[in-house]
């Protein structure tokens, strides 16, 4: 309206703006729902998936902000007084005082009163090295809670270390291993599958034949072999010279084992997509093959990739536990849930059963993997409504 002046001689020639505006408004009011919005709406109605999702979010937050919580040290041993204590709910412990007599004192970090050098030495004793972010969180914690610690709710291990604290710090390592290794497998699998699927013909045949062969290669055994070699002190030093820590290689190796299925799935999807018109459209405006694959095709297989992702993370975390069991996983002073479970099962004897050492790590691992599995199922249903109710 405001565009057309009353005296405008061209008014008659102009399109009927009111009508277009009306159409525009109407079109605007019918907003399309994207696949993701739709999926999210369906997922929100599924309380199992939502419970799993909230649990995982809380867990991730807990892992990130672990130093903030008033936990005991995950490292400090106390062979004299605190060996293999069952779960306790009082934050006190027996200590031997200077006179050599036993007395009951609160569990304490003995940190607040220390200054500078002493303080740093004690922090090193309690947590090895802390990065600046963790240091910050620790300072906040000391400001709020002081030396006070949560009681050993999950008991202590055979070296007198607090299991609860070890579980929290283990969560950091386990989750990181799960995520990073999965991302590695994702990267390899998606690129490989997408390229094979898009290239088609001989290249595809060859690439997929290689995958077929690899299915018959007992990778895990080769991985074990490589890891033992990497655990050699000499090799480790050499690697550290290059600035690569052993755990990075661990990620890459685990990731490299789990990409085969992902490659197959992605290839299948790409093949069914690559004859769609939007790919032709991209090609006609001169997009390169690389661009078509990674900008146009891969985003379209994202949903299936995400579903598969939630199912790969548990597999990878189990593999980490498996490596820990063989003594080839992360190394002390780092802790992971796999390692804690292994420590728990190792001390099973007919004489005495330290049930808390088996139950709590298993519970942590199982509830996380459980949630990931349920979330994966829920996501699959949400992203692919056809699959609903199956």
């Amino acid at each position: 309206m405001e565009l057309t002046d009353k005296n405008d001689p061209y008014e008659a020639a102009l399109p009927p703006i009111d009508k277009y505006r009306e159409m525009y408004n109407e079109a605007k009011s019918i907003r399309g729902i994207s696949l993701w919005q739709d999926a999210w709406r369906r997922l929100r109605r599924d309380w199992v998936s939502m419970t799993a999702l909230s649990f995982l979010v809380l867990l991730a937050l807990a892992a990130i902000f672990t130093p903030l919580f008033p936990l005991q040290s995950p490292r400090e041993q106390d062979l004299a007084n605190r060996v293999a204590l069952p779960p306790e709910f009082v934050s006190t412990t027996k200590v031997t005082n200077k006179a050599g007599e036993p007395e009951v004192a609160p569990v304490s970090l003995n940190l607040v009163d220390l200054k500078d050098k002493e303080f740093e030495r004690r922090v090193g004793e309690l947590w090895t090295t802390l990065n600046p972010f963790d240091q910050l969180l620790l300072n906040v914690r000391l400001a709020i809670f002081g030396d006070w610690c949560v009681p050993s709710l999950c008991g202590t291990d055979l070296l007198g270390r607090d299991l609860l604290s070890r579980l929290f710090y283990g969560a950091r390592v386990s989750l990181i291993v799960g995520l990073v290794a999965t991302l590695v497998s994702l990267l390899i699998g998606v690129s490989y599958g997408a390229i094979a699927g898009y290239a088609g013909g001989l290249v595809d045949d060859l690439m997929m034949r290689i995958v077929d062969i690899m299915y018959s290669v007992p990778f895990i055994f080769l991985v074990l072999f490589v890891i033992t070699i990497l655990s050699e002190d000499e090799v480790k030093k050499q690697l550290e010279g290059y600035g690569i820590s052993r755990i990075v290689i661990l990620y890459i190796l685990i990731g490299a084992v789990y990409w085969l299925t992902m490659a197959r799935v992605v290839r299948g999807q790409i093949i069914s997509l690559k004859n769609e018109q939007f790919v032709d459209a991209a090609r006609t405006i001169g997009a390169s093959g690389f661009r078509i694959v990674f900008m146009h095709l891969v985003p379209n297989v994202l949903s299936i990739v995400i579903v598969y992702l939630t199912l790969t993370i548990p597999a990878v975390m189990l593999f980490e536990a498996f490596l820990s069991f063989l003594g080839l996983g992360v190394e002390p002073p780092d802790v992971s849930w796999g390692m804690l479970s292994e420590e728990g099962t190792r001390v099973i004897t007919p004489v005495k059963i330290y049930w808390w050492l088996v139950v709590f790590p298993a519970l942590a691992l199982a509830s996380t993997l459980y949630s990931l599995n349920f979330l994966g199922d829920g996501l699959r249903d949400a992203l692919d409504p056809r699959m609903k109710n199956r």
Partner: protein
Amino acid sequence: MIKFLLKRMLWMVLTMWVVFTISFFLMWTVSPEGALLSERQLPEAIKQNLERYYHLDQPLTYRYFIVLWEYLHLNPGPSMKLIDKSILEILREGLPISISLGVLGLSFALILGFASGIISALRRQTVIDVTFRSIATLGIAIPNFVLAGFAIIIFVFQLKLFPAAGWGRPIDLVLPSLCLAAPFAAYISRLTRTGMLEVLGQDYIRTAYAKGLMPTTVVLKHAFRGAILPVVSYLGPATAGILTGSLVLERIFFIPGMGSHFIEAVLQKDHPVSLAIVMVYTFLLFTMNTLVDLSYGLIDPRVKLDK
């Protein structure tokens, strides 16, 4: 069919050769001394003798062909650690144990998985279904060795149903193979349930009911075949998983199988033994994958065996 098998044989030879080559060079380049590494205090003369015995004094490529030649004659030579034993003897001891553990585990997994999966699908959304699915997810979410730990605490120490560990009697195999089977049974159960529900929604199932067949006939004759296709294709990866799992369980239950030998060989850099066991595993995996493809073709007549 014969053409398919011949082709597969060819691929197997190729695969095994590739695995052999990669493993061989990987092992010997990163730790050239093998198991002799740990015995530095040996007198020089003996050490040289040993080196000659294992051809360690020869260049690596030359040794590669020697070992390859020996492998072609199915003679992987002596172990480096257990000097008085040949690798064939080690395999002859370990393989039957591991295979019976694996076969028993796989059978348990299939029986438990099929039964619970079918019942779950038929009694969908009931208490039974939810219970089975929760147990199945638990089986997937707990590491093998933790499960074995629980099993030992409950069945061995508390209920005293099974012997703790050891090897020799058939009963010794039951608990380990059940623990080995658990995650795979869980997965197979889920696959069967999904497959069953999908097939039960098909038109041909309605046709079967319309023909007046009883529900059991419909499920077992008409639905089962279609429903287990995903399970069949899962058997390849499952075999790989069972091999891995047996490493853990042999260790927990002190079973002298191939897994135990492999771990030991790897930790002690007994390269000839590791290599031989890797080759055996490759062979087993390849055979299993071929069997899977073959049975896929037998179950689904629409599948053509053309690879």
